[in-house]
């Protein structure tokens, strides 16, 4: 292959970038992950044309399961239009040519970083998480040889030591994202850096949930309807973030995860939905928040 040939992307690379052999290897890891929910399956992650830590794990999982008939949605921080979501969407637009969507309900495959869509997912959908550090025990025990043994023997006392220490120091559990969960009563799993607000959505979700960590070379999975329980104490039960008396300034939604937006130098703030598709769908249906009119005027 000459250099001139490889310089035009679409011809030089296979459908969805990865060669079929690599996809098969990754699909085997995914199947193993589905068979053992919450277990981290090592896989030979490839070097991708985007940096490690920028979603290479999620991209490899997506590339391996994507077919020509799929409709793909890519979100980062809940939004379709944040820079990294745009970059990954363009990557798949160029290398696979599959249909792209920003609507949660229309997507068959959703790749995400740090959020689960507000809208309930269905059996026909697969949610793929980008994972930076898949090992929930990593910051308590840096050694891979030891953490693998701890998982194998279900030695998870240390996990609660961390939560105990939070309460002893702060009066309550101070873990707000990447909040550890117990999967099917067997494996403790890191749900990736999603806010703990999203943890309950993982529990018995109808969609297949896949997790890819490229740099750390691990894949894990939650098949549909898997038990996912956030760790806690009886007298300090798991709680999600709450914004009492707060509505989205654009669509008026309550009980969603909010982005906080600083409006001026005086520090006044407003809250908007972190899930941009959810927010826009609500606005299209005629739900408005208190800043909606002002904002529409401004972008005219």
């Amino acid at each position: 292959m000459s250099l001139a040939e490889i310089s035009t992307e679409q011809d030089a690379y296979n459908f969805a970038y990865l060669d079929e052999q690599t996809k098969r290897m990754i699909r085997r890891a995914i199947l193993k992950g589905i068979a053992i929910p919450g277990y981290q399956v090592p896989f030979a992650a490839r070097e991708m044309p985007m940096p490690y830590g920028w979603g290479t794990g999620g991209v490899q999982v997506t590339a391996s399961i994507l077919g020509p008939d799929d409709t793909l949605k890519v979100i980062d921080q809940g939004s379709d239009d944040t820079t990294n979501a745009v970059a990954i969407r363009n990557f798949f637009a160029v290398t696979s040519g599959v249909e792209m969507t920003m609507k949660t309900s229309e997507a068959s495959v959703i790749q995400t970083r740090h959020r689960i869509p507000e809208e309930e997912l269905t059996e026909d959908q697969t949610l793929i998480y980008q994972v930076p550090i898949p090992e929930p025990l990593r910051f308590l025990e840096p050694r891979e040889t030891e953490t693998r043994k701890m998982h194998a023997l279900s030695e998870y006392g240390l996990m609660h030591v961390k939560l105990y220490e939070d309460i002893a120091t702060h009066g309550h559990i101070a873990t707000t994202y990447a909040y550890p969960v117990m999967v099917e009563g067997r494996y403790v799993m890191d749900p990736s850096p999603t806010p703990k607000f999203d943890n309950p959505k993982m529990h018995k979700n109808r969609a297949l949930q896949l997790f890819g960590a490229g740099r750390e070379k691990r894949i894990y999975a939650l098949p549909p309807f898997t038990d996912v329980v956030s760790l806690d104490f009886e007298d300090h039960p798991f709680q999600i973030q709450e914004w009492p008396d707060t509505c989205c300034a654009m669509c008026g939604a309550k009980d969603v995860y909010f982005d906080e937006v600083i409006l001026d130098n005086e520090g006044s703030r407003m809250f908007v939905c972190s899930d941009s598709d959810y927010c826009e769908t609500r606005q299209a249906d005629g739900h408005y928040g208190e800043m909606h009119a002002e904002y529409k005027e401004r972008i005219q």
Partner: protein
Amino acid sequence: MYVAVKGGEKAIKNAHKLFAAKRRGNANVPGLTTAQIVEQLSFVVDRVMGEGSLFDRELAAIAIRQAQGDLIEAIFLIRAYRTTLPRFGYSTPIQTDEMLISRRISATFKDLPGGQILGPTFDYSHRLIDFGYDSEEAAEAPEQSELIEASTPRVTDMLGDQGMMEPDPQSAEGEEVGDLTRAPLDFPADRDLRLQNLARGDEGFLLALGYSTQRGYARTHPFAGEIRMGEVEVEFFAEELGFEVPLGKISVTECQMINQFQGSEEAPPQFTRGYGLVFGHAERKAMSMALVDRALRWEELGEELTAPAQDQEFVLSHSDNIQATGFVEHLKLPHYVDFQAELDLIRTMSEEFWAERNDEPTTKMGAAE
């Protein structure tokens, strides 16, 4: 003012345009050719080939130019390209004793069969900026003896023949050499995988670790037994033909460190080795690699684990500059969602703090609640 997050796509496109313009710089200055990079910046080309783990000078030069001289970025380009290449098989081991040597030094023997060959080197030059250097002028032709075609025994082999040096490790019959680009690294990793990891590892990281062993963090009493640089033949055993086919020549730098060993119940006191092998001319990297390789062998040689350079999970997990740069730089990605979660918590805890003191919150953030 609140600006909608919409527009990311447009911003990215324009950022790329800006960057392309920056790459070319002032259009009145002649553009850089890859031939210039290959011929005149050979050390950066060698580094990109080594850490990119793909031997192709022209491709490395293209990557260096595209990356505007950011070597880690150039290595990244090479790696991302390399990973897409089909794998036909593995070459037979290169024979460095059959090397066409252009430089070979030993710090352990004044003279030895095959001789010391100083070759091209920065060593013994005075580091003075050469203000009079004219890049258009051809360099004075050096005196050159005939390149030695005959095989030159390695210093470590000579010591080995006298029983003073541990034998080269032999892999068991039918045992395949590991490849960390095809299977995930599993700890504890054997020496084949450790050496592969180090050969691809960041020169600066290995230099610092190697240096730390010299300063007492896992002291191994090294001597530079031999450093040789030159060209070796790469051969491939073709199943269909039943014999080895030469594929071409590559240049490599090999370093064999000779280290002390006290002996054990099973083995008499003898020297042990640390090994370094790198594409191109890269003595600093080859020597650092050899120091770190030896330090990582503490367990097999019955030594104490006391220092970072010995700790294989630490060394092997952090040596890859592509992994490292990706994860460090990913902090630039938006973290609105996690940050919001933390902000919320800190706000709650701050309120609790002031409530306990029966005091009014004084921060602006708190006051806005």
